[in-house]
Every structure is written in structure tokens, then in C-alpha cells.
């Protein structure tokens, strides 16, 4: 396809389309990293909620068994 055209013109056209592609890939990479961070935050929050729930019934149970002294 590119045989019929001079090399320097092909180079500039190729460079232009490559610039677009590289910019797009870099931007998508940055977006991907952002979403990974958000995902990590959500996982941390889920762990915190789950450990909080486990602690809460244990504390309630301990409170109920504590002698009132009456």
C-alpha cells in the first residue's frame, strides 16, 4: 500500500497516527490505574466493615455475660 508514495510523507502520516494511538493508550493506562486505586479503596472499606461487624456481636455477647453485681 505504501510503495507508491515517497517515504518522508509516509513517515509523517505514520507518526501522526502513532502519536494519536500512544496518547490514547497512555490516557487509558492512567484511567486504568485510577480505577485500580478505587477498587483497592473499596476492598479496604469492605474489609473494615466486615471486621467491624465481627467485632460488634462479640462485644455485645461479652457485655451480656458480664456480671451486673446485683
Amino acid at each position: 500500500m505504501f510503495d507508491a508514495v515517497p517515504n518522508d510523507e509516509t513517515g509523517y502520516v505514520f507518526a501522526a497516527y502513532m502519536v494519536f494511538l500512544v496518547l490514547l493508550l497512555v490516557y487509558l493506562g492512567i484511567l486504568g490505574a485510577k480505577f485500580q486505586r478505587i477498587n483497592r479503596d473499596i476492598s479496604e472499606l469492605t474489609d473494615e466493615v466486615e471486621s467491624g461487624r465481627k467485632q460488634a456481636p462479640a462485644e455485645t455477647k461479652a457485655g451480656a455475660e458480664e456480671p451486673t453485681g446485683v
Partner: protein
Amino acid sequence: MSGRGIKQLSIATALVLVVGFVLVFFWVPMDADQGFKQKIFYLHVPLAIVALIGFMAGGVEGYRHLRSNDRRHDANSYVFIHLSIIFGVAVLITGMLWAKASWGHYWVWNEPTLVSFLIVFLLYCTYYPFRYAIEDRDRQARYASVFAITAGAFVPLNFMAVRMAESLIHPRVFATSEGGLPGSMMFTFLVCLAGMALLWVTLVKLELLGKQTSGQVSRLRRALEAEGIGAGDEPSGTVGRRIAPNLEAR
């Protein structure tokens, strides 16, 4: 805007862009005047059109924010401008490569079209430090909206001024006295334009989804802290806390 339909939109974007570029390299005839280098036109011009419309859309969202005081419009305005600046970088680089191939120089300072786009681009580059400089979130959003409206109004004025300028070596291909683009070139151009517009919308939706989700995570963290569950420190990874407009409930 939400995350609904992002997958379908992404597929449509990729499809239209690939079809457009296949048409550019395998179907559309070679330009009689410019030859092979004219193929940059199908990338450069759609990018420029979408970037300029994006800047103006940012102004419209800024106006809607000032009218409603709804933070979502400020976030939209920020993301529209942010994406358009990135598209602007691509416009400048592809334009410089086309200029070098056509005129032998990467930049021609006495060409109004080039210089005017650079002015618009540099104007919008000041948007980030402008936002950074204001600590208070409400003031930041209001001032940024005023900036977006003013700069957005400057874009069409600038475009008209350039069209009225006399000395032009930058090619005019639409609505010329010679009749403009032939049918096949116009069709290919429109497909590429649709692809770029779809790409812009997809990236905007992805950015907004990210901001929305990180806002929800912050809200959830605060709610858990209030209930005494979880650690007090906010993780360093929380996205866009400093400059980007948050989408948290006020």
C-alpha cells in the same frame, strides 16, 4: 452521567474509529494536490473540531453550574475541558507533523489558524492552576465556571476572526468556491469525526464514573468513621481529592 452503557459505547467507538481508519488507508482516493500526507487531515481535523466543541460544552456546563449550583455540572465542565485539552495536545502534534510534511516547517507563526488554536489551547492550560489556586471548594467551582463560560465564548469568536483573516495558507476544504471535498472524502471524514466524537464521549463517561465512584468511597468512609468502624486515615490512593471537583453529596 453514569456508567451505564459504557461497554457498548466503547465497542461502538472502537468499531467506528477502526472503520474510519480503514477507509482512510484503503478506500478513499489519494488527494491530487497533497498526495499521501493529506491522510493526516482525517485525524487532525476531527480531533480539532471535537476539542473546540468540547471547550464550548465545558462553558455550557459552567453556565448550568452557576444557574443551579449543582456540583455535577461543575464536574462535567471540568472533565469536558480536561479531555478537550488532551485532544488539543493531539491536534497540535498532528498539525505540526502535517505542517512539516506540507510546508517544510513544524510551525508557521504568520498563519492565523495555527496561532489562534495555540492561543485557545494555552488559555485552557491556565484552567488547572486557576483551580489549584483556590482552596475553598465552592469558590473554586464558581470561579472555574466563570472561566469556562468566558473561555468557551472566546472559542467561536476566535474561530470567526480567523475565518475573516485574509492571509491564509492553511487549507480550506469545506464550503470552498471549488465545491469542497468530493463525496468519498467527505464520507470518510464524517466517519472519522463520528469516531472522534464517540471517543470523547466515552472518555468523558469513564472520567466521570471514576470521580463519581471515588466520591462515593469517600462518603462511605466518612459514614463508617462516624459509626466508629474502620481506620481514620484516608488512603493515599483516593482519586482526585485535590483539584478535581468532587461528586460527593453536600
